């Protein structure tokens, strides 16, 4: 044998550089950086502390849910209910605390609500074989309706004895002037990235998305894992809801409306493949960042806000177009 065994084992299809350059996430990241550089020079208001503080904080709510959504998308599923779940969870938190309970009780009840919804979605999808699209579309309607029932469709802006604690949790900046939501996002992203790369759970999620039948045959506990993934997705919406409530200081029954589409867009722009098997935590953040930079820059450049949808939609198609071109070249 010309090559030793160790050499064969060490051989890769790509070195680290070509692997990075070949990834969609990398190019979207470049786009984000270029856009930021361009905006710093062309506007006076972009590279100000206040605007950067705003951007980073605005990114977080979509980004945190996109982390959960990425797990769902990796398994080949989809969760359309996250916007409504965010609304319901915010409302449960608001109503509980308004009724005089402490913030700890409020958060516990909220997280239990989120996990309960995820469990319901997951069981229907994994054990009863419902298409994820249908179950979560139903939940999109149900959760928002429940939020209206819980609040009688009013705005809640008084959160009982722990009112100030909740506002500090979401609106404060405890570390180096970085907005709290950003800290939560970074911690959750690191956690998600670690789980995907280094745990059996993460490996099995990729396997389910790659070939669910093969995963079942090789003894991967496919059904419990799918339930877990939908619970995590709902949990991420619940966590984002808690933080957003603290930041906004008020909850209405229309928060998070249409958010599921932004979240899915962030995941897809960041490189997650809706066919399953591909996606990263970092990609979810980068995708969310690109969407927010587009929104922010249109405002700063004085472009009519009605154009926002066109630019974000264009970004989705462009990001996936790069991926398609690469695949076409590979298959030739």
């Amino acid at each position, binding site marked *: 044998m010309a090559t030793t*065994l*160790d050499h*064969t*084992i060490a*051989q*890769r*299809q790509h070195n680290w550089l070509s692997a990075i350059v070949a990834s969609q996430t990398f190019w979207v990241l470049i786009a984000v950086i270029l856009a930021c550089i361009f905006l710093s020079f062309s506007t006076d208001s972009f590279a100000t502390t206040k605007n950067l503080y705003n951007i980073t904080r605005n990114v977080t709510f979509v980004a945190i849910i996109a982390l959960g959504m990425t797990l769902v998308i990796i398994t080949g599923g989809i969760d359309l209910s996250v916007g409504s779940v965010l609304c319901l969870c915010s409302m449960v938190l608001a109503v509980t605390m308004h009724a005089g309970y402490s913030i700890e009780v409020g958060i516990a009840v909220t997280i239990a609500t989120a996990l309960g919804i995820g469990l319901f979605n997951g069981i229907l999808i994994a054990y009863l074989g419902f298409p994820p699209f249908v179950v979560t579309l139903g939940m999109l309607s149900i959760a928002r309706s429940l939020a209206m029932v819980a609040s009688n469709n009013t705005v809640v802006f008084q959160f009982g004895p722990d009112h100030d604690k909740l506002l500090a949790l979401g609106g404060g900046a405890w570390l180096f002037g970085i907005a709290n939501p950003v800290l939560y996002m970074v911690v959750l992203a690191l956690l998600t990235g670690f789980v995907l*790369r*280094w*745990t*059996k759970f993460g*490996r*099995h999620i*990729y*396997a389910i*998305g*790659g*070939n669910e*039948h*093969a*995963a079942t*045959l*090789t*003894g*991967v506990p496919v059904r419990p894992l799918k339930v877990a993934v939908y619970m995590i997705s709902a949990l991420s919406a619940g966590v984002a809801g808690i933080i957003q409530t603290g930041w906004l200081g008020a909850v209405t029954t229309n928060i998070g409306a249409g958010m599921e589409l932004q979240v899915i867009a962030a995941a897809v722009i960041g490189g997650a493949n809706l066919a399953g*098997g*591909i996606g990263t935590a970092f990609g979810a953040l980068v995708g969310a960042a690109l969407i927010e930079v587009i929104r922010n820059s249109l405002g700063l450049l004085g472009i009519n806000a009605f154009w926002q949808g066109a630019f974000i939609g264009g970004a989705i198609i462009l990001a996936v177009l790069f991926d398609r071109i690469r695949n076409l070249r*590979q298959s030739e």
Partner: protein
Amino acid sequence: MALLELTNISKHFGAIQAVNDISLSLEAGEVTGLMGDNGAGKSTLVKMIAGNFRPSHGTMRMEGTDLVLHKPVDARRHGIEIVHQDLALCDNLTAAANVFLGRELRVGMGPFGVLDYASMYKRAGQIFAELKSETRPRDLVKQMSGGQRQAVAIARTMLSQAKIVLMDEPTAAISVRQVAEVLNLIRLLRDQGLAIVLISHRMPDVFAVADRVVVMRRGRKVADKKIAASSPEEVTGLITGAIEQV
């Protein structure tokens, strides 16, 4: 004593009787060719041995003790490995990840262990070398040839000290040269003292490598004899029903 002894095994799905009252014994160091037309019950029988299905009736005994399998993991624990017809590979994962799918190596404490990439790459590389395959552990399965994919699927069976390897149509969709490789591999496993069950439609392959041939038709076993005492013509007759039973 037989390595694996099936006694009066039946399996029905609702009204459909897929496997009907089959008794079969597997010996160590023997290749058993399992033949039959589509729908004869070959795959169902093999999936019961592999723990994918539970028999409706009948018993399985391994090395003299009763064998009850609830899921594929149970079968593996008893040293029963299967190579599925579609190979059951995840295209989006590396060769090593596929070899270790469902039994990943970890380092660290109990439930907090992290994936042990280094050891998995190393072990997978050693197995591919044993199989004389050019497959590289870090390559994505997506970009592999049919023969390499086969090697990945077979490498799975060599992770643990297997006693029985079930192969479902391993030579169905690969090139002539690769068929020869796979048949050599089967001989290699047999010489290590494993019992091999080879499901195949390809008469030449079965006669080239098997020691014994079992023929199934409509869920029943219609023949079970030494390969030397049979002939392709007889087996064809048994498969089609031209010969009722021997």
